[in-house]
């Protein structure tokens, strides 16, 4: 019985972990969209340009782009890590299984 309870708790924790992760990913994406709308560039392209040093001319401390780019870069880097964690967590079970568990937890 204890083993069964423990398994149930672990299932609920995993469901909650994924739900929390999704909420976080959505918040980050919401922030990223603001920059994408403002500058007309998708975050992936901006990030790759920043990482490859193509945007050095903007590294001049001028506002508002300097602060925007600082945050945009950091947010996308964080998004990449969360996306990877989501994939890893989800890969530990089948997607229908996750949906069933979410329904049970709800």
């Amino acid at each position, binding site marked *: 019985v204890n083993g069964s309870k423990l398994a149930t708790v672990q299932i609920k924790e995993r469901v909650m972990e994924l739900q929390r992760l999704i909420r976080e990913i959505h918040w980050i994406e919401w922030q990223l969209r603001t920059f994408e709308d403002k500058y007309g560039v998708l975050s992936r392209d901006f990030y790759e340009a920043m990482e490859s040093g193509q945007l050095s001319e903007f590294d001049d*401390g001028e506002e508002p782009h300097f*602060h925007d780019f*600082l945050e945009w870069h*950091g947010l996308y880097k964080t998004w990449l890590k969360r996306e990877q964690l989501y994939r890893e967590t989800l890969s530990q079970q089948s997607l229908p299984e996750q949906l069933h568990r979410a329904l049970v937890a709800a």
Partner: protein
Amino acid sequence: MLVRRQYEQLVYTLPDQYPSVRLSTLVLVPPGLDTARLTGLVTFDSDIVLCVYELLDFQQGVIEAYRYEVSRCHSPFTESPLPQADEYCRASYAGMIRGHIPAILPRRPPFPITSISHQTSNTIVFLRRS
């Protein structure tokens, strides 16, 4: 490595922990997530103002992006809550108040969240001595 709750405790009790801190508008948003943004300003004696921006990743335990600007305000901040903190820091970041251009921040590596308390402490100690 500090968890979010510990970091909130640190940030929201700065004036209590450090006598040289007069006022603080630092706020961590959004609530409840491992990704959060810390913004606001901290005022010290001699009308010195520290504008703070941090993008924190509590899951990895790093400050992914950060920016600090120290300046001396023209008129003393004596009100609480502080007036127009966001505008003050924007102006500070834009070079209207500050005296130097910051380093190449987007390319700077993140550092552990444990370091920020140390770094902030050093800043406060520095300001106290100056």
